């Protein structure tokens, strides 16, 4: 729905907006290599993301404490620099006295992990269906696009809640749901690109040389979808992370005691007025990450978008 699911509409538009230029750019493989100027904001974003991924992977080594270890007498301790804070808990503790820093680090693992895997699911599913739809056209295309329309038309969060009720909670269900929630964006964009690619000379040439459908799709069409997929994936990663946070807000996301930024944010929101750090810290982490991903994604799109390049 609008605050969680209209995102698709928005992303679609950016997808279609980029899809047309891409169709032109897809004169593939012949594109010249150019030296790329990276703006400072992008450098900062990239460094941030690299550090974040590193910290998430190394969480078991660098986290000062077990993220699930409770200490009820030290609950709701503020970060060290705030009055009443202590160095034992550099970023404070949550409402059960668990170390916030450790939870943020392990939470990064969970949130980014879910984000990446779900995005991959959406990417693979959407790309396959989109390529098939665009390549074969006809009834298959029609059915796939019908399914995409149907899914876009319903508030996915409602479907997700019902699915959680049906299939249970847990990270696997969450990942699959988050993945499925975004396939349409990839499918639509890929389909549009394939529709234009399949009429290109190099495809016709391959065909006339006797290449099978599978070969044409794999060898000639798929490689040309790389950049558009990459761009949509950055958009989708943001959407998936927010999706996890929204489900966690409704209590259906990652289950305790495992931390994820979304669930920390959702469960800590009651404390915004009394112990702000419980939700503000994961909130800030989440926003910074999404911001960095968006900036890099936008930059990638501009970089790969020939109209802007020429402009």
């Amino acid at each position: 729905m609008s605050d969680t699911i209209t995102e698709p509409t928005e992303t679609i538009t950016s997808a279609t907006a980029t899809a047309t230029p891409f169709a032109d750019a897809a004169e593939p493989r012949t594109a010249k290599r150019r030296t790329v100027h990276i703006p400072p904001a992008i450098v900062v974003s990239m460094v941030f993301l690299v550090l974040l991924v590193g910290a998430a992977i190394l969480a078991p080594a660098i986290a000062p404490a077990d993220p699930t270890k409770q200490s009820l007498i030290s609950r709701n301790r503020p970060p060290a620099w705030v009055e009443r804070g202590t160095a034992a808990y550099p970023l404070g503790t949550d409402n059960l006295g668990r170390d916030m820093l450790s939870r943020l680090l392990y939470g990064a693992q969970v949130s980014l992990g879910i984000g990446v895997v779900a995005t991959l699911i959406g990417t693979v599913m959407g790309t396959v269906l989109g390529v098939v739809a665009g390549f074969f056209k006809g009834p298959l295309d029609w059915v796939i696009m019908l399914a995409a329309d149907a899914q876009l038309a319903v508030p996915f969060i409602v479907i997700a809640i019902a699915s959680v009720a049906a299939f249970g909670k847990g990270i696997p269900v969450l990942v699959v749901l988050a993945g499925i929630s975004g396939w349409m964006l990839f499918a639509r964009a890929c389909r549009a690109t394939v529709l234009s690619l399949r009429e290109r000379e190099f495809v016709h040439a391959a065909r006339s040389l006797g290449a099978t459908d599978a070969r044409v799709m794999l060898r000639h069409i798929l490689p040309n979808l790389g950049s558009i997929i990459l761009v949509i994936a950055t958009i989708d990663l943001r959407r998936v992370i927010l999706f996890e946070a929204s489900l966690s807000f409704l209590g259906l996301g990652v289950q305790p005691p495992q931390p994820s930024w979304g669930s920390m944010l959702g469960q800590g929101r009651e404390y915004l007025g009394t112990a702000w750090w419980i939700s503000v810290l994961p909130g800030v982490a989440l926003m910074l990450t999404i911001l960095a991903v968006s900036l890099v994604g936008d930059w990638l799109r501009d970089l790969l978008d020939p109209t802007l390049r020429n402009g």
Partner: protein
Amino acid sequence: MQSVGQFVVQRVVRAFLTLWLVVTAVFFILHVSGDPVALLLSESAPPEQIEALRAQLGLDQPVVVQYGKYLGSVVRGDFGKSIRQRQPAFSLVLDRFPATAQLALAAFALSTAAGLAVGIFAALRRGSPLDRLAMLFTSILQSGPPFFIGILLILFFSVQLGWLPSSGRGTLKQLILPAVTLSGLTMASLARLSRSSLLDVLRNDYIRTARAKGVREGEIVRVHALRNAALPLITVAGLELGGLLTGAVITETVFAWPGIGRLAVDAVSTRDYPVVQASVLFIAAVFVGVNFLVDCSYALLDPRVRGV
């Protein structure tokens, strides 16, 4: 190439198929998710009573039969009675629509006005620090989970400043915070889209020609560029409106706004099947309807669309 008539017929068929798919998917997912009977009877009701009620509700029949019956009644416009409220499910959904529509329209007006202003402004100063700042701002807007932003707004404007009411629906003042919260994402996407489509247009030859002819920049933007950039914007704005009209679960929950989104979520958690089905179908119908209108107007304005 098809005629407009053919195009419309095809779209209508497609719209109905889409809705059928939605109804079917929701029916089966709900079917797996559990039985409302346990929630209907008191905890210590004897098994015979449970069975009797299941039979009364038709839940003891094979799934396919239940599905067929359900589809039949939906076609007749009968969505059944809410299990929880014991009122016709569809009228419950209709009761909520004004609230959702009010919030959606307010958020839409806000986001279109602000989004276009920021987008045009940024496009005209492309590459400048102000442009970057504007784009950074939209990125930040898109990065925050709505419930987080909503609660921060409540804490600041209701608790700290005491300017605005925190929740509920009634006065115009109560509309402000939820509308602002909800408009964030749409505003950001409209700003970005208007910027990029304006830039696309500004690069065209006829603009260069106009410039070469010495037409003033303001006139170029007003007369040539905006008009041409409008088409994709209208499409997207239409889709966004469709999205907003389908309710906003999270925003409605945070601000206790009595809209369709919250109705649907509450209904899922209480396994109030008829209401879930009625609300999801209603939402889908609104979305598909708006989409259909956008498609049609687009097709009328740009014949190429029909070809694809």
